[in-house]
């Protein structure tokens, strides 16, 4: 897997404040002349698109960005990263302040920077990144490693992803035309987040409800598990988990024909005992 090609490192900077993005670019140019800045993104969605399109070696991700946070960008990147090919970039999170996050960064991020970034601190980050790139990271190992790191970071930095548990729902109410349908939670096979809605899928029907997947998830019991950033499945409805030739995991359902993709972040749920 280790194809050693002499190749100049490339980085992507995701930072919504233009002055700060430019400053980081300038200071990196002084400290690490051979590093190319492949792209500067000013919001979460374009950062994700840029990462997947350009596949840089390094990503500087600001935590607070419009659209998606830096950690969510990393999560989506991990889930959508193409099989084979290049390993995912080393991620350096950048934040002005996150009271409880520094410990999490310390443990789970490749590196992190606190704004304002001093020259000394940036120098140490550059040294660490150079060492990291020299070890020529393996594609699969890097993805697995990133998956292991991101879980705790998401839990720590995205409290909205883990709202306090509430009394479990018995029914989900969905507006269908002029009437409201009551869907018993037991009948739900899976939930799929779309743009502003959640699609509630049973064996025989689908219905859209206008809530966020996270807030709905908080009201479901332990039969329901997240398997992708946009999918929650009822484990009672899962027949088997199967791996394709690329090692991607998908779920075969008891009462539906379609298969559900399991993201790299959640494959550990389906390991044999």
């Amino acid at each position, binding site marked *: 897997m280790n194809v050693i090609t002499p190749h100049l490192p490339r980085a992507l900077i995701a930072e919504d404040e233009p002055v700060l993005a430019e400053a980081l670019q300038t200071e990196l140019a002084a400290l690490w002349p051979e590093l190319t800045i492949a792209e500067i993104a000013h919001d979460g969605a374009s950062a994700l698109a840029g990462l997947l399109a350009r596949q840089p070696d390094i990503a500087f991700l600001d935590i607070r960005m419009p659209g998606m946070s830096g950690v969510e960008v990393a999560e989506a990147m991990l889930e959508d990263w193409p099989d084979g090919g290049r390993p995912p970039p080393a991620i350096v999170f950048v934040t002005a*302040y996150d009271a409880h996050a520094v410990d999490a960064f310390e443990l789970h991020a490749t590196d992190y920077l606190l704004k304002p970034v001093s020259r000394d601190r940036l120098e140490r980050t550059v040294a660490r990144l150079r060492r990291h790139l020299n070890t020529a990271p393996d594609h699969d190992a890097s993805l697995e490693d990133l998956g292991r790191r991101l879980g705790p970071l998401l839990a720590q930095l995205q409290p909205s992803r883990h709202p306090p548990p509430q009394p479990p729902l018995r029914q989900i109410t969905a507006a269908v035309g002029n009437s409201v349908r009551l869907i018993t939670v037991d009948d739900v096979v899976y939930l799929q987040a779309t743009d502003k809605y959640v699609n509630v899928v049973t064996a025989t029907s689908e219905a859209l409800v206008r809530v966020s997947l996270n807030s709905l998830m908080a009201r479901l019991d332990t039969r329901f598990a997240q398997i992708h950033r946009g999918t929650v499945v009822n484990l009672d409805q899962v027949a088997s988990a199967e791996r394709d030739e690329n090692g991607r995991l998908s779920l075969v359902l008891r009462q539906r024909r379609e298969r559900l993709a399991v993201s790299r972040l959640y494959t550990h749920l389906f390991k044999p005992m």
Partner: protein
Amino acid sequence: MAHAGRTFLKPLLTVGATTVALCTGLAVVLATLVPAMGGFVITWVHAVAIGLAAQVFTRGGLHAIWRDRQPHPAGLIALCLAGMAAAVWTGAHLAGLVLGIPIDWLTRDTEGIRLPALLATLAGTTVLTGIGWVRNHTAHLRLLAELEQTRAAAAARLADEAQLRLLRAQLEPHMLFNTLATLRALIGQNPARAQDMLDRIVSFMRATLDGSRTDILSVKDEFNVLDDYLGLMAIRLGSRLSYRLLPAETALHLPMPALLLQPLIENAVRHGIEPAPAGGHIEVRADIDAAEADGAEGPRLRIAVSDTGVGFEEELDHAAALTTRPALRPSAPVARPTGNGFGLDAVRARLGAAYGDQATLNVTSPWPPSAHGGTLIELALPIRALDAAPATASSVRR
């Protein structure tokens, strides 16, 4: 229950004791001046009986007719006269019963007792009613003063809270460190802009600290603070934030609660512009509205804060849970969720404390109505009430 009984009994005993004391005095005078009365004991029993009966009739009547409302003066006099007549008749019969003597003086006034007795009753009732009225009136005045003091204290407390919130906003770590990071970057990139930014930081911080010494700012000064804040944010957000401040010339000198608009602007930036990848535009206007449509309340200071950011149409569910004060007549019961726990509710509370129900705050989102996002917040503050508010507050303190 025992406590309620006691509080009910105590004023009753006080009234009884006052009445007996006053009637005793009257009896002494009457027995000395009019020997035909038949001595002190007979006079005293009559006086006390009539006096207590008068209290029962007038107070009972007062309670039965007006309950807790303020009685009409003419009605009060009529009640006293009727109560007195009834009291003389009842009291005389009661005294006759107690003493075992005939009450023929009521019908046949041979000894000339009737006139002095009636005069004495009249004097006694007048004095008693007078005492009661004076006490009620002073209690009423004291209550008014206390009410005014509470209102002034609440307004002062809310101004303090607004102050504290602003200080916290300045020191909010994200705002602070991001601002410092931008400043550090600009020192290298563009020293002139770095200086401009530092000037704004200093000016904004000074305004915040000065705000703690005054509850009222002119529209002009208030808009200067907004300009400093928005200027800082515009440097940070670059092309994603543009803004315009448009206070009308005629409104510049008008007073308004200090830093009232700051939380609204902060909301517009944090929850309107920052989450929108394309950014947006913020506009703040102030002018005088001479003809108020729904009442002759005089001219009003009208302030409109609008942004073209995310809007909170998507947060309707969340906002429905937020309470809105009916006195402030919100046009739509929606409120942008406030990350720091302040925001709209705090502004409403301050308006209520400064103006009672005279001020209005309306929120419209999306704005304009055909758009997907955007928010308009309109405030209308009575100009006259604003001038009067600090005067009454200080007169109470004096």
